[in-house]
């Protein structure tokens, strides 16, 4: 889920070497007025650079319920060097952290660990906890308090109780692309792999004090929003701009932020944003997922035949919702429908086969170990949801599950 995150990927600390964000050059004719760029003009960025956003839970360490101290945490940490990496979220019980832009996993992970350590240290001084996971097991949504910024108050006004129910926690991964056409191609091509990300990141089995039987219950909350779903089946950026202008003129949306799609182009950053992962239980796992997205993007962009073509995009989206549901419901044990062969196959097998194809790219990008860890996790079935369920079985209390998850996040 995301509200403010749209403008929150931290560009203040961008490593220029890694990003080389360039403004699109326009031909100029002397004496002619320069037309204003379209608000959706696509900013080119270095392909395959990546950035991570994580929405985190703020925990009352006494009751293990969510606390409401995001503003105080942000105030207290305002002078710390990680301050630019932090942002408020829709309710006072959440906070968002975002990484700088990275070309490689081995710079992303240390930065994310540093942010985590600083955050955990300050939280300890405040006597609150920081916790990963896609949902809080037993918080009551109606007890949440909206973070008082104009945008969040407007979202709360617009969406009513959905705004407070949106106190669920997601990971977003940005992958840099050279232009808008690449962005649209990648948006559609990634869609086939959405179940992988959902299942590997799944860590929201509990919601409102109940085992939902889902591995990721978080996405059901996102589904309630009218503009959730996937991007329109267009492939050229020009076409996308026309689509957006039409939607805007009709009053369906005001800005790109109004689309709550699973995968969204992000023209101002020059990225494609994957928004379907639950926030994992550790930053290391979050970094592994980003590494998978980066490697997959490298493989897909390297040869367009590997991804989706305009001719096959309709078929791609036929089983999309069902496959996504399967991954939410059964996690790694999901079965995926493949329309072209009219078959079902285990998601785990599909993931392992995909990883096998990525080996050369993983070696170039330094993501091999991440993919190995994700493969081991897939074979054992041990995602975040399973871990959380095992904890509940062991301690028989939801609040102790939160306590353990908070301790896990800090390590």
């Amino acid at each position, binding site marked *: 889920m995301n509200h403010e995150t749209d403008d929150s990927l931290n560009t203040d600390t961008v490593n220029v070497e890694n990003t080389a964000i360039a403004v699109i050059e326009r031909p100029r004719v002397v004496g002619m007025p320069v037309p204003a760029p379209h608000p959706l003009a696509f900013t080119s960025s270095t392909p395959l650079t990546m950035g991570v956003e994580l929405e985190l839970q703020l925990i009352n360490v006494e009751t293990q319920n969510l606390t409401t101290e995001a503003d105080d945490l942000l105030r207290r940490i305002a002078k710390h060097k990680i301050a630019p990496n932090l942002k408020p979220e829709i309710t006072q019980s959440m906070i968002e952290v975002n990484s700088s832009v990275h070309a490689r996993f081995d710079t992303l992970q240390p930065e994310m660990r540093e942010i985590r350590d600083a955050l955990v240290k300050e939280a300890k001084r405040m006597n609150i906890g920081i916790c990963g996971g896609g949902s809080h097991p037993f918080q009551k949504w109606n007890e949440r308090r909206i973070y008082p910024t104009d945008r969040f108050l407007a979202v709360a006004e617009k969406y009513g109780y959905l705004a407070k129910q949106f106190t669920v926690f997601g990971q977003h991964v940005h992958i840099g692309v050279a232009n808008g056409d690449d962005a649209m191609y990648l948006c559609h091509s990634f869609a086939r792999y959405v179940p992988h990300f959902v299942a590997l990141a799944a860590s929201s089995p509990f919601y409102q004090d109940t085992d939902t039987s889902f591995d990721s219950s978080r996405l059901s909350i996102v589904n309630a929003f009218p503009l959730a779903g996937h991007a329109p089946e267009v492939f050229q950026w020009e076409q996308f701009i026309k689509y957006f202008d039409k939607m805007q003129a009709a009053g369906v949306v005001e800005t790109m932020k109004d689309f709550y799609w699973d995968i969204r182009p992000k023209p101002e950053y020059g990225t494609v944003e994957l928004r379907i992962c639950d926030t994992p239980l550790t930053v290391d796992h979050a970094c592994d997922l980003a590494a998978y997205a980066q490697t997959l993007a490298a493989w897909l962009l390297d040869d367009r035949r590997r991804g989706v073509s305009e001719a096959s995009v309709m078929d791609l989206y036929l089983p999309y919702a069902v496959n996504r549901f399967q991954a939410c419901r059964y996690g790694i044990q999901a079965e995926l429908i493949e329309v072209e062969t009219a078959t079902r196959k285990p998601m785990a097998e599909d993931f392992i086969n995909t990883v096998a194809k990525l080996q050369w790219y993983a070696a170039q990008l330094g993501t091999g170990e991440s993919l190995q860890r994700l493969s081991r996790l897939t074979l054992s079935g041990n995602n975040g949801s399973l871990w959380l369920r095992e904890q509940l079985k062991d301690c028989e209390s939801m609040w*102790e599950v939160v306590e353990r998850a908070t301790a896990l996040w800090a390590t």
Partner: protein
Amino acid sequence: MFFDFLPTFPLKLSEFLLFGLVLLAGLVGGRLAALTRVMPVITGYILVGFICGPGGFNLITESLLGDMRVFVDISLGLILFDLGRRIDLRWLASEKWLLMTGLVESALTFALLTLLFVAFDVPFIQAAVAGAVGVATSAAVVMRVASDVGSEGPVTRRAFSLVAINNMVALLLFTSLLPFVHLENRIVFADALLHPLYLIAGSVLLGAVLFQLLVTMSRWLKRTNTEQFILQLAMIVAAVGLAAMLKLSVLLTLLTLGLMARNVHPHRRLPVVEFGDVAQLFFVVLFVMTGAGLKLGDFSTVAWLAFVFVIVRFVAKALPIFAFGTLSKLSLRQSAALSLSLTPLAGLAAGMTFMLGDMLGSNTPALSSLAGTVLLASVTLMQLVGPVAARFAFTYANEADPNT
């Protein structure tokens, strides 16, 4: 005799009837207070109690006050246990400026209040006893007001810690002074020395034994909210009864029990159960009875001195809070709110004075009439002002739930 089946006059209020009436009256008072939007509901309970009590229309007489004592004690037990379990000792150990704030504000309050009474020619020991009593902040008022407005956040959490610290310090100071009071009253030396020891060590020991029993049973029972709730409630009521039976400190026993529930076995703690609506019943009775116990007659004679007492106490607590607040990264607004939240000086302080009276026998006034009267007058004043100040503090700190 005809009409034997009819009740005989005068009708006698049974405990059941009284309990029901007190609850009803409290509800009305609470509702009226809530309508003001600045008064916490407990002020409504207190005012209704005062109006119905011996100081008002005398519907709740002194003897009925005694009958209701059991409910009041259970309420205090619940509150003290709740306070104890909200104190994270590991946090206090690591966030040293908070601990320092608590110790310094307690010490400064004790010193300045003692000096105040000495300045008014109260004998030193008695001035010190009054000073010790003045250190304590009402756990009942602070915690119930915070709960009523749904307050949660850094100021609330620190307020609870400071309330626990200054109640502990007050109790320690108070019991340490007991030998001297005993000696002044020519009580046997051994008694004078052993009494505080029995009181402190005995209460802590009782709390610890009950905690062990609580943990054992908690692990044996199902960890559902209902069973754990009944278990904890039962243990609290038993603890109150045992402490009273053994002439130990109810405050220290329950605080010990709560502190251990939170801090021992940090990785396999007792479940935190919400006492919820059941406890709310007891709290209504507690505050209505507190109100009924107030006496305005004493107040008028020493009102100005009580006012000075309250101001000195506020300043003594606020100075260290502001001084150490910066080191704890508190904003000025948070420090101001925290200082205000400690204003309530209430039932427990009165409890201590009464306890002293009980211990020394009713014929021996524990405190000089001046110190005692000023204390009680301050309590009266703060019962009315304290909850309003605490409510304002939590709202001012932006920690009260805007939905309540």
